[in-house]
């Protein structure tokens, strides 16, 4: 299953790289115009690093590799934020070779807690958390109700997208966007969008694995 974890991560990386310009444009509107560039650079390094891991590597170690790579190659705030997220998920996934629904919920929750404690933001402040928190809530609800992984991931993606969309209505008080104040209204938070891209990539990968389209 680690082989699949590695493939899922590569899929995430490729999705980010494909969306490099979109993310950069969003960040040009309300930031320092480097989110796409930074994330693409970070995930290109991630793809390279995880590609060198053996398929027997446990999931915790795979995720830790992602974390350390992002931390030292992304450069902007997303480096320590996503890096910490993957680090916390790694701890939750330590020693595991397979992941069930409950573990996936625990890992996503740990990741989000990491982002909150690192970035000191909460939902509603126009950050990546505005995509991730609703995604977790929807995912957990679905898993607990006994729905399939794909269905649960679909719910997570829908919630994440709605959350990212809602950031248009929030005035930024975190990150570089806060320098723009009211002018940040009407613009989606780039971090919320990259979170959506990552979740969608994992979902698309899992769907392909299942053989359904």
């Amino acid at each position, binding site marked *: 299953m680690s082989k699949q974890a590695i493939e899922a991560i590569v899929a995430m990386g490729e999705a980010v790289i494909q969306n490099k310009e979109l993310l950069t444009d969003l960040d040009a509107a309300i930031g320092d115009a*480097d989110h796409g560039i*930074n994330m693409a650079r970070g995930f290109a390094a991630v793809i390279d690093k995880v590609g060198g891991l053996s398929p027997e590597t446990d999931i915790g170690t795979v995720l830790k590799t992602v974390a*350390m790579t992002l*931390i*030292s*190659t*992304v*450069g*902007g*705030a997303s*480096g*320590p*934020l996503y*890096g*910490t997220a993957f*680090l916390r998920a790694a701890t939750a996934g330590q020693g595991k070779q397979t992941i069930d629904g409950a573990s996936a919920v625990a890992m996503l929750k740990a990741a989000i807690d990491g982002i909150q404690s*690192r*970035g000191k933001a909460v939902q509603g402040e126009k950050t990546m958390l505005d995509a991730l928190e609703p995604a977790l809530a929807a995912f957990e609800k679905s898993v607990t109700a006994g729905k399939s992984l794909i269905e649960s991931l679909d719910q997570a993606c829908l919630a994440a997208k709605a959350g990212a969309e809602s950031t248009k209505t929030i005035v930024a008080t*975190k*990150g*570089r966007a806060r320098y723009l104040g009211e002018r940040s209204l009407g613009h989606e938070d780039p971090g919320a969008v990259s979170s959506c891209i990552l979740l969608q990539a994992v979902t698309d990968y899992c769907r392909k694995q299942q053989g359904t389209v």
Partner: protein
Amino acid sequence: MVGVVIVSHSAKAAEGIREIAAQMSQAGQKILVAGGTQDGGIGTDAMKIAEAIREADDGDGVAVMVDLGSAIFSTETALEFLEEALLPRVQIVDAPVLEGTVSAVVQASLGGKLDEVVASAEEARDLRKK
């Protein structure tokens, strides 16, 4: 002496601040920089910061100066990778990076303890220019 680490999104900025502060320092004062990314671009790198903190410590601890928001995130992430014994001797300083570094270096060079160095540097928040 308390060591000082300058964390900046820019390697040039960190080095420039180091140069200015070094003029106020005594022999043996460690002032390390951790500016920019691995490939010399704008940004911060937690591993680079952790390395600088280790180098800056000679037992008396380290005051870490930071510029903008994500420099703090990277520095806090760096703390997670430090040896447990070193951690209690490291403090992030809540002060403007250039002025705070100068204050920190002056105080450290005078033999100030870590708390004193940090307090002195944080007074830089109140420096008026007009």
